[in-house]
């Protein structure tokens, strides 16, 4: 007759099996903890990653826009909500001459339509290859070449036609490359040089859409991106621009990012505090439960001592039992977090209205492994007191209790 050996693990498992309700409750506590730790950690890492990506991608210290369009510009950058606004291109030169300004480049915005003429309604951004210092560095990294006339570069969220083109104002344009995800509104924007933008503008005119009274993009610009000279404070330079040029607004990238970072910091802070609090509560609850349970089981451990179990073995038995609970709860919670948080990252990012960029698989796996480890530790940590207490109990006295 073949029987399995009665190892510490098996004895602990039998012990848990005998009290299924208690075991289920304890596993549930660790499951909730593991879910919060894993889910919360992936969430905070994604928010921080999104924030880093955003600050890297903005590329300019200041953004000059027509007066009253500051919020629209921020919407374009953060959410990719399509909009267009224009002012005179002469402002570009005025801005360039202001003290502390190192580089300027103008961009021209257009929006496609959610009608049959276009693949989708997206933000179209034209840049000047001669002066651009923001878009071209990404293009060089993603595409590895200069964007030719008539060719587009799309953000990561843009859905292309099957032939890798985009239909805009009844014309089809090839898409040379798509940028990697940035967790900003730029993911749902399409980029092109100013010549392509001009031909697009003409197509729009032909389709009966008049964005401007002027003839073409060269006659207007939507925003002027500014790089500030080293040693100059962007806020001061922004103040100078605003005071010298009428009817404009200036967005200071650092301030915008700081504002978002403040919101994000609060959210990340709440998630971290909640995780730490849950971890401490789980340890305390489990400590109390193990302590009560061990009291009930004093005679059982006394019998084990009589049969020849060392004090160390009793400690190992209690720790193994609690580790089993933690492992089951930890795996369940982490798996639930992986199933519920990872596939819905896009939805979560949209709901949070904050830059949300899930880190790559390696980082996510690392986070999940760490959360798993922290969940595994909870049980043994909570049962140390009970384990030491039971190992120190005098078998002789325990056996006599209740006689």
């Amino acid at each position: 007759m073949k029987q399995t050996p009665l190892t510490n693990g098996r004895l602990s498992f039998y012990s848990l099996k005998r009290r299924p309700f208690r075991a289920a409750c304890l596993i549930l506590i660790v499951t909730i903890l593991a879910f919060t730790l894993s889910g919360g950690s992936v969430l905070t890492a994604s928010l921080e990653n999104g924030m880093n990506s955003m600050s890297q991608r903005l590329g300019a210290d200041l953004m000059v826009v027509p007066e009253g369009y500051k919020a629209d510009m921020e919407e374009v950058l953060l959410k990719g909500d399509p909009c267009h606004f224009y002012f005179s291109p002469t402002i570009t030169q005025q801005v360039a001459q202001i003290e502390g300004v190192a580089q300027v480049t103008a961009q021209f915005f257009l929006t496609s339509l959610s009608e049959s003429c276009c693949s989708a309604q997206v933000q179209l951004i034209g840049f000047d290859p001669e002066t651009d210092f923001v878009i071209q560095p990404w293009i060089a990294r993603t595409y590895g070449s200069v964007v030719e006339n008539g060719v587009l570069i799309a953000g990561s969220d843009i859905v292309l036609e099957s032939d890798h083109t985009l239909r805009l104002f009844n014309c089809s344009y090839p898409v040379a490359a798509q940028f990697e995800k940035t967790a900003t509104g730029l993911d749902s924007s399409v980029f092109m040089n100013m010549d392509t933008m001009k031909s697009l503008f003409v197509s729009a005119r032909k389709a009966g859409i008049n964005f401007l009274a002027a003839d073409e993009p060269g006659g207007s610009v939507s925003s002027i991106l500014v790089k500030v000279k080293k040693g100059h404070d962007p806020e001061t330079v922004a103040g100078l621009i605003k005071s010298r040029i009428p009817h404009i607004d200036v967005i200071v990238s650092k301030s915008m990012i700081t504002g978002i970072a403040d919101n994000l910091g609060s959210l990340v802070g709440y998630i971290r505090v909640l995780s730490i609090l849950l971890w401490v509560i789980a340890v305390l609850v489990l400590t109390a439960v193990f302590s009560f349970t061990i009291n009930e089981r004093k005679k059982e451990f006394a019998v084990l001592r009589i049969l020849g179990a060392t004090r160390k073995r009793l400690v190992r038995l209690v720790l193994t039992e609690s580790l089993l609970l933690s492992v089951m709860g930890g795996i369940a919670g982490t798996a639930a977090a992986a199933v519920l948080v990872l596939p819905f990252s896009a939805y979560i990012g949209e709901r949070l209205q904050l830059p949300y960029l899930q880190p790559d698989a390696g980082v996510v796996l690392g986070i999940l492994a760490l959360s798993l480890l922290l969940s595994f530790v909870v049980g043994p940590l909570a049962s140390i007191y009970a384990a030491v207490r039971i190992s120190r109990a005098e078998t002789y006295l325990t056996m006599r209790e209740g006689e």
Partner: protein
Amino acid sequence: MVVRVSQLTKEFKRGNTSFFAVKNAGLSVYPGDFVSIIGRSGSGKTTLLNLIAGLLKPTSGSIEIGGKDIASFNDAEASRYRNAIIGYVPQGQSLLANLTVLDNVRLPFYFFRREGDVTKKAMTLLEQVGIPHLAHMYPRQLSGGEMRRVAIARALINDPAVLLADEPTSDLDVQTTAEMMKLFREISMNGTAVLMVTHDLEAIHEEARIFRMEAGVLTGQA
């Protein structure tokens, strides 16, 4: 000689007063011996048994097993001694409720590294104590007498030199008590010394060497 107890004393404190649970006890147990110690409750019988089992440290005196004084053992040595040399049948219900009868019997085998077919051996012991058909039952499904038989089989799993039994018939009827005594006698006749303490005069086998314990003092054959 299996066990030699010499000048064994155990002193306890209760509040500010101290008392002797065992006082200058002397006893020798030989292979195949059948020793019964009788005495009233509180006379020190269980304390003596616990001292011999290495569960308590004596205040003075010695307990020699194979020429070694077990008072000098550390926890690991004392546990190994209890597991290998001693078979202990505690008073009352002492089976682990979450294990089957067979696993209860097999359990002490796994506390230290051993070779052999423990399951086969456990089944043989269950046959010896007359309950092989209960191997896959749980303790809650057994009667008091059956549980005691399982505890005896468990105590014998590692072929101990001496079997200690603490009031093994305390809550059993007359017929079951007689069956138990017969079983203990068979065990002793197979070479394992049996040292039993009881306050139940019904539980005294006619062939046993009988000692009396009173107020911690062990006196010769009664």
